[in-house]
């Protein structure tokens, strides 16, 4: 145990002190922060702008309805609209308006005559037509205005019309928990995304660490004092700890910088309580999944001789995780099917699929316990396997072993 601890310590301290670690720890949040901050900034900058458009309609009422609908959407669009209502729907007027748009006197004009509305086909002519949000807002405004006009024509008052056009929200509740299913399974996707990126970055790191030792004679010195198993376990845990440290730093940064946003988000989700088990299982499955996949990368490092070879074979290691990620949708829909049951017990898929089942429709406790036990046993088995490959692999310099050779190694010693 002491030896494992020494290896963990060395691995951890050496990695945490590298420039690469410090750089990525600082750089990635900076990029993420900017990518959130800049678009927000740009959007708010636009809000002071007034877009001047003309609405060509057959009646003043139509024009007014569209104007008021656009005013309601000014927030979505990120700007105000100054709307002129134009009742001369002639071809000459069309040409004149087009000229005004071209000269910059107008930003755009909407051709919404009764004929066009009846045909549900309204054209917007503008200089800048690339703004996606603007297009969506215009479409919604015209649709709503048309509906409002039609309802008014049938004698339904403006207040009732407004009420009718509101969305009805459907809350989904399970018997025990007061949380929407929609909301709960999001956790699984977050878990999957986190697992994926962390394994990808730190798996490679474990692999390199094993390779580096294997290609120098350090391993001879180490193996004259440590068992391969101690060495591998220490390495895997040490590098994993580095990854967790980075995540912890990011989480802390996120909490400090994103505090106000998180608060705002919790306002939106008001009434939805997150049961603590959700977070506990999140931590358990993330940690176990991370260790399992790291140990697979370590085995890969023990097997190959160069970085390039390792990167080529990465897909073999990442394959099961990818598969689990894809199967998540199936499990989400039928969490109690036999397929979901069996898949969620397979250790390589359990971190995502068992967690998904727990989130969507909690399975019996014994199933959860069994999948966790299997995961832990597999991690242990993986470390032993790595140790074995490592020990024998070091005797073969310069040549990638063939499958029969690997099989022979595993039986040996």
């Amino acid at each position: 145990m002491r030896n494992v601890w020494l290896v963990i310590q060395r691995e951890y301290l050496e990695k945490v002190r590298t420039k690469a670690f410090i750089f990525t720890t600082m750089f990635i949040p900076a990029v993420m922060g900017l990518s959130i901050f800049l678009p927000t900034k740009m959007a708010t900058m636009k809000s002071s702008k007034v877009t001047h458009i003309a609405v060509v309609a057959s009646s003043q009422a139509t024009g007014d309805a569209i104007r008021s609908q656009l005013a309601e959407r000014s927030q979505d669009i990120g700007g105000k609209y100054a709307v002129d209502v134009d009742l001369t729907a002639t071809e000459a007027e069309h040409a004149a308006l087009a000229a005004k748009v071209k000269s910059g006197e107008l930003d755009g004009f909407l051709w919404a005559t009764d004929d066009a509305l009846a045909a549900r086909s309204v054209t917007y002519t503008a200089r800048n037509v690339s703004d996606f949000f603007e297009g969506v807002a215009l479409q919604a405004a015209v649709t709503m205005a048309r509906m409002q006009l039609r309802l008014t024509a049938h004698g339904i008052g403006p207040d009732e019309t407004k009420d009718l056009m509101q969305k009805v929200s459907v809350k989904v509740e399970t018997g025990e928990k007061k949380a929407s299913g929609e909301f709960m399974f999001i956790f699984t996707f977050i878990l999957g995304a986190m697992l994926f990126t962390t394994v990808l970055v730190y798996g490679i790191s474990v692999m390199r660490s094993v390779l580096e030792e294997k290609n120098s004679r350090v391993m001879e010195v180490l193996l004259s004092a440590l068992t391969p198993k101690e060495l591998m376990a220490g390495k895997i845990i040490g590098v994993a700890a580095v990854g967790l440290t980075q995540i912890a730093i990011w989480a802390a940064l996120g909490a400090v910088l994103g505090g106000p946003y998180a608060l705002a988000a919790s306002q939106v989700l008001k009434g939805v309580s997150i049961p603590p088990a959700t977070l506990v299982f999140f931590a358990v499955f993330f940690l176990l999944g991370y260790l399992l996949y790291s140990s697979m990368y370590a085995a890969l490092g023990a097997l190959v001789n160069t970085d390039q070879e390792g990167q080529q074979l990465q897909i073999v290691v990442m394959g099961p995780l990818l598969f689990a990620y894809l199967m998540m949708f199936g499990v989400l829909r039928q969490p109690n099917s036999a397929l979901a049951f069996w898949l969620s017990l397979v250790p390589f898929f359990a971190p995502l699929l068992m967690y998904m089942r727990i989130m969507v429709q909690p399975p019996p406790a014994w199933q959860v316990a069994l999948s966790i036990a299997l995961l832990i046993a597999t991690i242990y088995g993986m470390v032993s396997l790595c140790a074995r490959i490592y020990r024998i692999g070091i005797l073969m310099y310069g040549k990638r072993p063939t499958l029969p050779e690997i099989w022979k190694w595993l039986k040996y010693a």
Partner: protein
Amino acid sequence: MPSPTVQLEKVRKSYDHFVAVDDLSFQIPPGTIYGLLGPNGAGKTSTLRMMIGITVPDAGQVRLFGEPFQRGHLRRVGYLPEERGLYKKMKVLEQLVFLGEIRGLSARDAAARARRWCERLDLAAWMPKKVEELSKGMQQKVQFIAALLHEPALIMMDEPFAGLDPVNATLLKDVLLEQKQAGRTILFSTHRMDQVERMCDSICLINRGRQVLEGEIKQIKGRWGRNNVHIEYEGDGSFLRSNGLIQSFNDYGNYVEVRLAPGADAQQLLHQVSAGAKVYKFEMVEPSLEQIFIDVVGKTDA
């Protein structure tokens, strides 16, 4: 009589397509210096690896300190691999402390001993530097310290003098002799026979995984007899050509090393040389290990 520190009994190790070590037996008494000699690829490193538990013999037995090999023995063994046995990115002192700790020292002890050794071997200024910043010779010294830090009873060194200048080679040689005085057992593995020939008490010569020669150096040399002559002369060197007394020679101009033909009389050769040249030196010497090796291997290969 104390049991030998190292004992190999009919050890055999084969890899996929070749036999690396075959039927190798020798023993090293405590407190002596032993040389495992042979050309590149003879099976020296394979033998050492079985002695530190990296690999297991296919047949035969390795015994350390009088018992069959077990991992617990490794605490009492110091091992110096053939170059590059250090983490390049790690600082010298931290590295030594780590290597000391995994051999059972406390962090404090390891640090204190590492400092003392670094001072002794002129590395004090380099302790906070990363290993990759050091010259090859300095790295070798760090490696050397790592092998001795935990005061092992058995020191195994694979090519210890590789890449060292004469000053540092002498420094390390002195340290090793000191270790021998302190009762430690030392095993060298090298292909540079001339470098260790004077330090070793006994040797084992191997070639192609097989033992060629084994025993105390004195006895081996005695067995070979003094059939080598070093001659320093001025004048006619024609005696070297077509001479039935001479089996082979190495000509350096006015200095020549001659190997006598079996049964040849050295006195007769002296007469021939002095007939045409002025003789400054005519010395009968023991053959070097290298010559013995070439001799034996040449015979077995033929």
